[in-house]
């Protein structure tokens, strides 16, 4: 088997799907890219069994065939070339690969491509069409709030709740929660699934640069994202997503409105002085003043700042993990934010005051850290 391909195009394609590769695979062939040639079209596959990505390029080739090529070696080689045509010659008897460039020849051993695990076909899928930038935005807004608890695998992914007139994306680690709703996305029928972190992280990196539309196909067990000449198929997380609406408090008499950047920067500074394990900062609201403080008793460190704010409700004090607040505030774009609260042991609801985009609705929820005083 023999084919000719531009080194730059090939490298771009490999980098696009290479994120799927795991560093330690139980199945050695998963360290390889699978190259399949059919009628002058090369499709390249990378897989970790859970997630599989396939991308296509047209090439010059006389015959069809399959070969698995060690990914790291190939990527390392391609990175060193300025753009030029490369000729791959493959001996199908021993899977020896020879690459010829303008500079010379390189030999490496491939593996039998027929041994590469097959991706199951997506049976009876439902379909959603979405704008790549909208989907990418939804992932960006939610992914950070997912959990790592192996005992609660459902919370390690993002929940997609599909309706006739909107799609809601939800992520939580039981301490913080993000609900991101898009009125400009819809499915043809109500459905939901939980997408794992890894494919989402990969999509986050890719979709931002795609600038086209994405088709999402899904059934009970798998989802597939198709954009341009690339597709990604992944296994969904099995299980029931927690009833997130039930934990969003409805009675929140205390309402704090404050400039987002001012609050974010203040928390960033103050949190440096917080306890290194709890990362706790204290918000104290009195009249139109917000007092932000942190202390680390072990080192006698402490910090105090004051911000002007609009506050309606009774004076109160509440503690939060500053890392959570920083992540959440950084993930919003509005000038002002509102934090609605009821008591120092109940969740605070963080929402932007102005909409960045008419079609989006974002709500963040964070559980407090109990103050010990």
């Amino acid at each position, binding site marked *: 088997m023999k084919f000719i391909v531009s080194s730059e195009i090939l490298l771009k394609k490999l980098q696009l799907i290479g994120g799927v590769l795991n560093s*330690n695979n139980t199945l050695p062939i998963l360290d390889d890219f699978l190259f399949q040639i059919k009628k002058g079209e090369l499709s390249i596959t990378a897989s970790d069994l859970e997630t599989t990505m396939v991308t296509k390029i047209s090439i010059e080739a006389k015959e069809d065939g399959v070969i698995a090529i060690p990914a790291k070696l190939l990527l390392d080689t391609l990175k060193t070339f300025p753009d030029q045509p490369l000729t791959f010659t493959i001996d199908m008897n021993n899977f020896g690969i020879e690459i010829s460039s303008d500079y010379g020849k390189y030999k490496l051993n491939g593996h039998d491509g027929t041994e590469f695990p097959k991706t199951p076909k997506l049976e009876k899928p439902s379909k959603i069409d979405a704008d790549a930038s909208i989907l990418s935005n939804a992932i960006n807004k939610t992914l950070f709030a997912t959990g*790592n608890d192996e005992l609660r695998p459902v919370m390690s992914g993002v929940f997609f709740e599909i309706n006739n007139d909107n799609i809601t994306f939800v992520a939580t680690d039981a*301490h913080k*929660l993000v609900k991101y709703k898009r009125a400009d996305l819809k499915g043809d029928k109500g459905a939901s699934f939980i997408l794992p972190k890894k494919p989402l992280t990969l999509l986050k990196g890719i979709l931002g640069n795609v600038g086209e539309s994405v088709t999402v196909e899904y059934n009970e067990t798998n989802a597939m994202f198709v954009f341009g000449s690339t597709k990604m198929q992944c296994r969904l997380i099995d299980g029931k997503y927690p009833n997130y609406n039930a934990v969003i408090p409805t009675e929140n008499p205390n309402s704090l409105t404050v400039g987002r950047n001012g609050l974010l920067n203040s928390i960033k500074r103050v949190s440096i002085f917080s306890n290194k394990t*709890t990362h706790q900062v204290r918000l104290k609201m009195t009249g139109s003043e917000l007092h932000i403080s942190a202390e680390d008793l072990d080192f006698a460190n402490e910090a105090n700042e004051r911000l002007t704010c609009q506050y309606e409700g009774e004076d109160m004090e509440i503690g939060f993990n500053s890392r959570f607040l920083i992540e959440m505030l950084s993930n919003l774009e509005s000038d002002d934010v509102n934090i609605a609260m009821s008591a120092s042991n109940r*969740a605070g609801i963080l929402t932007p005051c102005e909409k960045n985009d008419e079609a989006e609705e974002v709500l963040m929820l964070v559980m407090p850290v*109990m103050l010990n005083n």
Partner: protein
Amino acid sequence: MPNRKILHIDMDAFYASVEQRDNPELIGKPIAVGGNRERGVVAAASYEARKYGVKSAMASSLAYQKCPQLIFIKPRFEAYKEVSKQIREVFEEYTHLVEPLSLDEAYLDVTENNFDIEFAMDVATEIKEKIKAKTGLTASAGISYNKFLAKIASDYNKPDGFYVITPSMAEDFIEKLPIEKFFGVGKVTAKKMHLKGIFRGKDLKKKTELQLTRWFGKSGKYYYNIVRGIDNRLVNPNRIRKSLGAERTYEKDITTKEEMILNIDSIADILIKRIKNSGGAGKSLTLKVKYGDFKQITRSKTLQEILSDADIKKVAIQLLELIPNIEKGIRLIGLQTANFEQENNDTFLGQLQFEF
């Protein structure tokens, strides 16, 4: 904090006593559990052996030099666990506030106990008697108003000891106490303290909180408090583990990388099994290596995520690359995982969760 009644119960020469109980021929003889004449460390020594200066954690070869008639015995952990279970049952009869420190040692908060016994001394006496009746072994009990003092008290007149440190005695007692006896002060800290002129409690007490924090970081505040008899640590029945490890001492020094890889692999297997039993690994792995000359080095790596079984083996081998001079001979290899998931810790530190 109201006046508490804390017991520290510690079995006397635990492993060695179990061996002597189960094999009467050993009674009255110097024995060491663990190791042999050439290798390993003494896990426990009988009181007869301690007279010769044999101590637990001492290299067996040194122990043998100190006491040539020392009898080495292979440890039988199953037997010790059985006894440990029995004594824990005795503790649980009195209170659910039992914090086991190891198989043979525990703190009990008996301020309120199941029999409404008013005096902690009476609880301690009963517990000692019950342990003796059930297991045929003796324990030492320390009684005081916090953990630090209770532990010191149990050590005060071992074996079969019984000692109370009352609030009025505490100050005098702590001032006279050599700093090596302070819980949390190991060899290294002790040396550091000696350099600062701190040898006994009274020397430590002269230092300001600021000085101690500057010298010893977080622990400085702890030292400042305990030397004043202040220790508010609660008896915590669900103590969370901070690290988990496995190690082996070898009959003959290891000198090649190939042998290291094989042995690291089998220690990793033991560690993985322990992780399975205890319910989780951490994010960091430490490889400990002790050379033939007892010089010890460690190399660690911390990952973003919790270590998987495969990670443990992979990282262990990566760490091995950082170990120099294998050919000099290595007598001990250990692996330890620590840095357990933050999320779980948050829960204990006041971070509230959604009720899903």
